[in-house]
């Protein structure tokens, strides 16, 4: 096995009585894109600052290419960081910004000029060297901030929610561009964000963090379809959630009677859930099939009928809210855009169904 670029073992950080990061261990293989996804205040920034060297861990170790960096000052560590608000130096022009680290390394001037030119070429902005920071657009600043780090050829590049300040359209564009830049530079990226779409789109591995701990670590697809904890199921993507009592368990499939009276089938995916316990069941809106007649959804083991209470048009991500006649709160269902349901309106009768495999069950109260 190749040596990981970055390895954290039992990383812990306490501030007084509060534990911001609680015994977190992970490894990031070379050249991969690793994201830490979590709500604000979950400790992800603390991890980032410990790796960069601005905070000393209370416990545990950080190794970069196998070497512990705990006693290495931030300005000597082979990691660089792209800050949340980029932190470009407003008093310097673009070339001086990018050349700053090289000047500090004491490289001769012609070499600095050559390297800065090269990296500007790489990010597709070859002629902006003499411009001032505030003359650039948001996306250009972004690329310059990355170039300023990449010119130093760090072992690991840390990115602290760098897309947060951009508008939606640019953010979508930068996601793709960041991924492309990462491939072009072939450097390990560690990315922290509270925006799940950023993490899911760009990363090879995503770690979902909550209250100082990693809830689950894995490929984006696994997190989305096979959440291991209720927190992940609720935090990543949207879900319909029912709480109820487990009535029977047969191998992995369990029958649950919701508090609102619905009988639902779900899967426990190996988790310990037995008869009589209270459980939450999570079902994704796009895992639910919409049909005009009961026959359309006859092959699913969960079936409900009801009326449309709301149409939530959002282009490709359009949804409907339907109220089941069997009772309970509204269910969010993805609305296929193939034209089949184009005439659907408030009050229309619809039938929905999904397979028990798509209903992830967790013991209640574990969030």
């Amino acid at each position: 096995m190749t040596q990981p670029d970055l390895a954290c073992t039992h990383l812990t950080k306490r501030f007084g009585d509060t534990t911001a990061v609680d015994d977190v261990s992970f490894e990031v293989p070379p050249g991969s894109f690793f994201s830490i996804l979590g709500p604000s205040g979950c400790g992800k920034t603390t991890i980032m600052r410990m790796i960069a060297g601005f905070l000393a861990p209370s416990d545990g170790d950080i190794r970069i290419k196998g070497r512990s960096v705990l006693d290495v000052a931030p300005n000597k560590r082979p990691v660089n960081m792209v800050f949340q608000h980029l932190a470009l130096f407003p008093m310097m022009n673009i070339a001086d910004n990018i050349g700053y680290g090289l000047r500090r390394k004491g490289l001769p001037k012609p070499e600095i000029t050559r390297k800065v030119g090269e990296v500007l070429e790489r990010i597709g902005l070859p002629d902006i060297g003499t411009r001032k920071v505030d003359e650039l657009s948001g996306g250009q600043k972004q690329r310059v901030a990355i170039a300023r780090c990449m010119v130093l050829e760090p072992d690991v590049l840390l990115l602290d929610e760098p897309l947060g300040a951009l508008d939606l359209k640019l953010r979508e564009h930068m996601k793709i561009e960041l991924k492309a830049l990462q491939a072009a530079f072939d450097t390990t990226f560690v990315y922290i964000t509270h925006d799940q779409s950023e993490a899911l789109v760009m990363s090879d591995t995503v770690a979902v963090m909550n209250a100082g701990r990693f809830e689950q670590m894995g490929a984006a697809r696994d997190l989305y379809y096979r959440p291991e904890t209720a927190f992940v199921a609720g935090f990543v993507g949207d879900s319909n959630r029912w709480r109820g009592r487990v009535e029977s368990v047969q191998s992995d499939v369990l029958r649950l009677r919701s508090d609102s009276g619905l009988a639902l089938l779900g899967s426990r995916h190996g988790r310990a859930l037995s008869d009589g316990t209270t459980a939450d069941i999570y079902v994704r809106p796009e895992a639910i099939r919409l049909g005009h007649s009961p026959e359309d959804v006859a092959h699913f083991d969960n079936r409900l009928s009801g009326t449309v209470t709301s149409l939530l048009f959002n282009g490709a991500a359009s949804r409907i809210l339907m109220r089941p006649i069997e009772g309970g709160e509204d269910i969010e269902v993805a609305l296929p855009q193939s034209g089949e349901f184009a005439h659907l309106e408030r009050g229309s009768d619809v039938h929905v169904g999904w397979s028990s495999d798509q209903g992830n069950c967790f013991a209640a109260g574990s969030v």
Partner: protein
Amino acid sequence: MQAAQRLGFLLLVTPLLLWLGLLIIIPHIDMFLVSLRERVGVGEYATSLANYRSFIEEPLYLMTFARTAVMSVMATALTLLIGFPVAYYIAKMARGRVRSALFLLCLVPFWVSELVRTFGWMILLRETGLFSSVLQWAGLADAPVEMLYNDAAIMVGLVYTSMLFMVVPLITTLDSLDDAVIEAGYDLGGSGPSILREIVIPHAMPGIVSGSIVVFMLSLGNYLTPIMLGGKDSLWFTELIYSQFIVRFNWELGAAFGFMLLILSSVIVWGTLRLTGQTLEKTMG
């Protein structure tokens, strides 16, 4: 509607015009005219440059003029040197209540009049003062030491009087420097001194220049501190102006001195702005 707007504008601008006209422009024009008068007989005057000529021809005047300028520049530099770390600490390192407390400490001396403040220093520095007694008690001196009435005492007084006017603009500019920019400097391999030189100081330049201009002008035009701490040999230029106006009733020469001081401070401020590449709008805005 438009008439009402116009009236509002007039009402707003009148105090400014009155202030500028009555307190600055008219007195200066008058001063300039007085400085160009030469007394040729009792109650007889002629227009000439005689007052300016006597300023240039009298070595004592020129010497005092130059000495005041140099010491004011030194006092400004010293204030900056002491004030910068203080401002940096308050703006970037201190947090919450400590920060307000420190800021208040800078302000506290200004609650008493300059006269009282200067007397405070006299109590500390005089022959029978605190420092002298402590030195004798510690056995470092065997006779009372006079620390007043020398240039060092003047310098101490000037720096002390000016500190607040340096620290406040510095805190304001340093406050506006994002901490992440400093961290980015470290992250990219910068060391403390290099970050100070390449990032902090360039960012703080408007504050440094505006603080320096204010402190320089205050020192140059200070009268009380040099006289009290420097004694009768303090040779401060404002003292010469005072004696021409009040002691010798030679308003003509006094006015010429006043104008020389105005020219001197203008030239030095302009030079500083040019040298640092700042503009007055940027530093004072």
